[in-house]
């Protein structure tokens, strides 16, 4: 494993400490920042998140980060969105109100159908044989969300099924990927997935 540099986008809303500790425990150099020069220089940029979509987008706008993140993605930067951070990759969210997202992956963030919230550990079903995700197939990870990112099937990297409903658990479009669950709080399965994503996406850059 080679040591990579990770930049966690600091937009004031999120579980930064847990995410930072997880990457550091994996041996990567990791820093929380909203300095564009630094974030442009890292191997992988991470959008963390615990919270509501409108507040998060508002925070990104106020830091003038929206166009910067879009530009980085178009230049091939490896980007990982975690939970709310994954939903921010969407074109639009219907959480509380209709809010435009970063638009890096087509799709809409919608309320869950089967229940108000999805909280707990569930097994992933990996799609398209994506090599970055395949070792996690049928492994349980921790979810905690009330909205879900519905994407065209081609961008759906993994799903989770509950009581007959199937939801997006992970998305990927080239070097941009997102995880609806919390890998940093999914014990060994989550940490190893994070490591594979960092290695795989940074290598593909």
């Amino acid at each position: 494993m080679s040591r990579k540099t990770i930049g966690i986008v600091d937009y004031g809303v999120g579980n930064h400490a847990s995410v930072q500790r997880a990457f550091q425990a994996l041996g990567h150099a990791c820093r929380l920042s909203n300095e564009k020069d630094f974030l442009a220089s890292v191997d992988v940029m991470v959008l963390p998140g615990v919270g509501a979509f409108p507040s998060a987008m508002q925070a990104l706008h106020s830091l003038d980060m929206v166009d910067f993140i879009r530009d980085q993605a178009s230049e091939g930067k490896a980007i990982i969105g975690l939970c709310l951070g994954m939903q921010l990759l969407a074109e639009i969210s219907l959480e509380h109100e209709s809010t435009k997202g970063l638009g890096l992956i087509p799709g809409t963030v919608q309320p869950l159908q089967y229940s108000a919230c999805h909280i707990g550990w569930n097994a992933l079903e990996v799609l398209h044989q994506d090599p970055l995700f395949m070792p996690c197939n049928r492994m349980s990870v921790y979810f905690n969300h009330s909205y879900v990112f519905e994407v065209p099937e081609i961008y759906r990297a993994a799903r989770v099924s509950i009581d007959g409903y199937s939801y997006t658990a992970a998305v990927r479009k080239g070097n941009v990927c997102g995880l609806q669950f919390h890998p940093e709080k999914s014990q060994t399965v989550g940490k190893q997935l994070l490591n594979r994503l960092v290695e795989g996406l940074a290598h593909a850059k």
Partner: protein
Amino acid sequence: MLNKRLIGVVTVKNGWAVQSFGYRRYLPLGKPEVLVHNLDRWGADEILLQCTDRSHPSVGPDFELLRKVSDLGISTPLIYSGGIRGREDALKVVSFGADRVMIDALLKNAPADVEAVARVLGIQAVIANLPTKNAPEGMLLLDYHSGHEMPLAEAVKLLPLDWISEVMLTDWYHEGYSEAFCMSLLAASDLLRKPLICFGGISTSHQIRALLANDSVVAIGVGNSLNYKEHAIQALKKDLFGVAIRPPYYESSTL
């Protein structure tokens, strides 16, 4: 099917982890961060860190303890409870590494602030703690500060339950005692209409199995009884074979 959860509960008073008996009598157990670390190693589905002496407005959440826990680099979801006075406290608690917040006094004292917390963190991150007791006159909700109890049926009308994801139904009277959780408290689900976490006087797999058989119960909180043997979470889960919970987690069973 959504797996149900086994939550390891660490109760903290005056900065020390304690074994509590009905929140009236306490025995010291040691450093909270050590207990949290154990629960993380043993594969708890979530960990609840409940600080019982932080609710005076001048005190607030125990950020120093959260920092110590964060420094452990745990990879188990963390719920924090104690002294959350509103939106800013809740945001800071999450930035220190908690994934969800549990609210008690704020529910009654400032319901509008609960909405503010949910709007910024998302409803899924907000849990209500309702300390209840079954009495001849019906279920009663306890106000820890005043010691007064009021009928749960009346209290529910005042609580901002639209802004929380789950209710922790705490059998405070039996908390700390073996196999003592009052099963009739489950009738509260008809009033609350929220997924329930049961806590207080729950210690055996037999009892957990019976509680999880109720459709309204999504999680069980276990406290004291986890602290007297190694790998207590795995042992409990092993005994719960056939129940819809994540199987016991061992380092060697993963990738």
